[in-house]
């Protein structure tokens, strides 16, 4: 079956104002709204569009994390994914561990395309995609803004610092999504009901033979340095004066 695998991460919703715990042990996540990482939502949307155009037969979503992550998998199923895999794991899951777990799922499911977000908006690591492509020994195209599937190949445009770069890769391959690839659809109520009946399989991380090794010890968390409060000027002339005073003009 022509299958696309999409990696999904549960993160603090992008609208939540992040606060560091006073004891520096982390950020406040109790009672905070959680969502699918926005870049992963774009990844899922792209997979769904490819399937809707006849380019794939099944869209499979997967996540690695605690039991709560199933809520985000259900949202993904409601968006239109056919099937979900939940790799159950508690505690910190670093990108290399996530990549190892996803590799095991790739070996089992044999997708021709894997799409993940370019970064998760919690740890901002931007690592899992390229790490997975390395372990899989397959092509990677990061920061995609356009994906075209050809016969056995993909032509992908990526957003890079100088502009737009286009690469051609043999399939299977891994793609990470940038913001302008698409706009994810909204979930409709009947789809939420339907999603409850779609298959969601749970696997233990250890059963995949993957160890939740933690390479980085998180020593402490601090709030960022705050900028000093500035001044208001009333017109362009005052602005020019203020800039001159600072030696900027």
């Amino acid at each position, binding site marked *: 079956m022509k299958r696309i695998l999409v990696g999904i991460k549960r993160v603090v919703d992008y609208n939540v*104002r*992040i606060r*560091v715990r006073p004891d520096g042990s982390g*950020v406040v996540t109790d009672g905070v709204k959680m969502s699918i990482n926005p870049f992963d939502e774009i990844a899922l949307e792209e997979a769904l569009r490819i399937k809707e155009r006849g380019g794939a037969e099944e869209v499979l979503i997967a996540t690695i994390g605690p039991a709560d992550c199933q809520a985000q998998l259900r949202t993904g199923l409601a968006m239109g994914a056919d099937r979900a895999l939940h790799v159950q794991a508690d505690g910190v899951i670093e*990108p*290399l561990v996530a990549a190892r777990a996803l590799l095991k799922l790739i070996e089992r499911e044999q997708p021709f395309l894997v799409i993940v977000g*370019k*970064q998760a*908006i919690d740890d*901002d*690591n*931007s*690592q899992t995609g*390229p*790490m*997975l*492509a*390395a*372990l899989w*020994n*397959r092509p*990677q195209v*990061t920061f995609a*803004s356009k994906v075209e599937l050809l016969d056995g190949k993909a032509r992908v445009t*990526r*957003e*890079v610092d*100088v*502009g*737009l*770069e*286009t*690469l051609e*890769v*043999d399939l299977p391959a891994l793609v990470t999504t940038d*913001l*302008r690839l698409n706009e994810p659809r909204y979930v409709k109520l009947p789809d939420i009901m339907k999603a409850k009946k779609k298959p969601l399989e749970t696997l233990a991380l250890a059963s995949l033979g993957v160890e939740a090794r*933690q*390479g*980085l*010890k*998180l*020593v*402490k*968390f*601090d*709030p960022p340095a705050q*900028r000093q409060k*500035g*001044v*208001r*000027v*009333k*017109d*362009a*002339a005052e*602005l*020019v004066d203020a*800039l001159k005073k600072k030696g*900027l003009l």
Partner: protein
Amino acid sequence: MGVKVLIVAEHDGSKLNASTAKSVTCARGIPDAQITIAVCARDAAAVAAEAAQLVGVHSVIKVEHAANEHALAAILAPQIAAVAADYTHVLGPSTTFGKDVMPRIAALLDTAQISDIMAVESATRFRRPIYAGNAIVTVEIDPARKIVGTVRTASFEAAATGGSASIESASVQVELPTHTRFVSVSAAKSDRPDLQTAARVVSGGRALGSAEGFKILYSLADKLGAAVGASRAAVDAGYAPNELQVGQTGKIIAPELYVAIGISGAIQHLTGIKDARTIVAINKDAEAPIFEVADIGLVGDLFQIVPELERLIG
């Protein structure tokens, strides 16, 4: 083995990118580090010569191969991973180049990566921003493995030139994949300073209203000798090309002067500018969050203020 840092050079085949000189400054913060820059290219001579001039660099190694004509992560990573055998640390810039290639190297070396290093506390302890810069985490990495990291370039000054490091050639015997091919790149040609490294940046948001409206910024930027940037909203709306985007998912910059025009100041945008020395905000909404971080704020109609500003600067 002492502390030996390998820096993966970013370049366009003929010139070194400024992000490399900033990575050198980050590496110099690691106590007793001996720094080597690796230049992967088809012909690395010119870039290697430039890298050898960076102060604090001990040596430069050229990794030359016809397949290195374009910086493709799948092709560069196995070569760097092979060269990395002799080093304790491997660093690259946290630009789209580094974000693409460094995690691929880390995975081949079977080690975790520290992304966006903003401060070095020791050879194994670093600080980095998370949650769009709303928290800073201090991480400690196990020195038993190679330490791979990307450098948040806005946090470091460029290393000075005037050095004279030795230049060597490395022969790397690894099989390179053919599954990834470069097709094209469309880079807007501009005489303006590079956004990533410019001392002054004039940036516009959705309030510019159109690609046509956005042009008034170019004119002001040219008067100031500034680079032009844009908010995500302006890029999404098609007023400006993607490479101008400043913010969490675009470029993170640290100019002397940042002029935000018609930008409301979403958290993800502020993440990209919080290291700017002076932030000026011009916006008609007095409650816009951009004013929370601005050193100088001006509430008003940008379509009146910008031309007047341009006239006053002369």
